[in-house]
């Protein structure tokens, strides 16, 4: 028995085990990369299976989590409180201007056609959790296929595009945020000519715009909205963000820009799923 145990842990055997596991991992990676359907089904099943378990544990530990965050971020909260007090004072002084500003905003929205939900059917959903991995740019919402949510449907919050549905179970869905490095959205400049792409950077506040024609009049402050069009994954005219900096391109073939996201992805509580499907 002692000999067999020793043999079973020999370096040669452990290398063989490692090689088999590495090979299996690479095979799974390749299959998932190519969109192998059973893997998606397995993920949806896992999402459905752990939803009640995770919710139960989450509800038990949520108060502890809140206390933990409060204790950890005391100085941040104090700073935020000071900033909010200052903000209240500013807002009070601006109150008299609010009616005019509201009228102006309504006109601007009308001109820019930013009533983005339009006639589309929508599903309101609550954000239950952020992604499990530390570099996940996803959120889990409390609605699934039973409520009419399907893979690929666009998700918006009050200010604009948030992401799209990347996994669905009967009562839960996972939304991949536009800030995910794998995310690409076709966009156009609002109010003037110019088409391009925005990509996630992993930063929940900033996107990178690229592939704008070199002759596009891309400028700081420009608003980017989804371009829509044939085979687009998103309907047209969903606000995406505002150009914060136009970046130089060495070759001068295209224009790139840094884009501040319209929606605030940190601390999302409610989102709206647009029941829109791309044309086949």
């Amino acid at each position, binding site marked *: 028995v002692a000999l067999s145990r020793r043999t079973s842990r020999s370096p040669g055997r*452990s290398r063989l085990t490692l090689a088999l596991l590495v090979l299996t*991992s690479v095979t799974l990676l390749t299959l998932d990369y190519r969109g192998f359907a059973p893997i998606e089904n397995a993920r949806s099943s896992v999402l459905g299976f752990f939803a009640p378990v995770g919710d139960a544990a989450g509800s038990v530990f949520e108060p502890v989590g809140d206390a933990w965050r409060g204790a950890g971020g005391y100085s941040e909260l104090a700073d935020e409180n000071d900033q909010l007090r200052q903000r209240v004072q500013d807002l009070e002084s601006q109150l008299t201007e609010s009616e005019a500003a509201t009228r102006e905003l309504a006109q601007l929205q009308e001109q820019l056609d930013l009533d983005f939900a339009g006639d589309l059917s929508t599903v309101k959903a609550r954000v239950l959790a952020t992604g499990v991995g*530390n570099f*996940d740019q996803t959120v889990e919402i409390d609605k699934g296929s039973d409520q009419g949510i399907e893979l690929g449907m666009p998700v918006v919050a009050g200010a604009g595009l948030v992401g799209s549905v990347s996994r669905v179970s009967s009562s839960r869905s996972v939304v991949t945020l536009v800030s995910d490095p794998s995310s690409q959205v076709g966009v156009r400049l609002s109010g003037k000519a110019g088409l391009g792409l925005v990509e996630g950077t992993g930063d929940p506040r900033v996107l990178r715009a690229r592939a704008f024609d070199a002759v596009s009049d891309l400028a700081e402050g420009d608003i980017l909205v989804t371009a829509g069009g044939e085979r687009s994954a998103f309907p047209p005219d969903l606000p995406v963000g505002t150009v914060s900096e136009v970046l130089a391109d060495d070759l001068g073939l295209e224009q790139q820009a840094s884009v501040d996201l319209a929606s605030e992805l940190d601390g999302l509580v409610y989102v709206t799923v647009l029941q829109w499907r791309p044309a086949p």
Partner: protein
Amino acid sequence: MALVLVTTAALQRGVANQLRIADVAVDLFLVVAVAGGLASGPDRGAIGGFVGGLVMDLLSASSLLGLTALAWCLVGWAVGRWHAGVTRSSRWVPVGVGAVAGAAAIPLWVGLAFVVGRVTGLPEGFWPAVAVSSVSTAVLVLPVLRVMRWVWQEPIGVPSSLR
């Protein structure tokens, strides 16, 4: 082992995600991989890391299936391989190994994610993730080590090289 994995998955989703440190969630499956390597050597360290990473990949929407499995499998194997050469053990060895493995695991994952095109550079929150992973793995490895030894019926307190 299945019970350990299901419990870990529930704790990961329900607890570790809630109790974030510097916006970083502790990766309990990484701790399982490291403890597996320490408890039973490279074979079981690699298997524990692979299976745990696979569950993590299934729970995560944006990771490719097999990415975390590969990374944690390599970590579990390396820890087991290193620990197999240790003839004297003390309470602090697992803690030190946990700290180093926890810190090394994040760059390894990011490196593999870069190779398969999941990240394009150092992701936001990389350094806090390295720090939290190192500290949390060091802190949690001892209790998880006891669980892993119980699961695999290994004697407690004896280095794997001497069994």
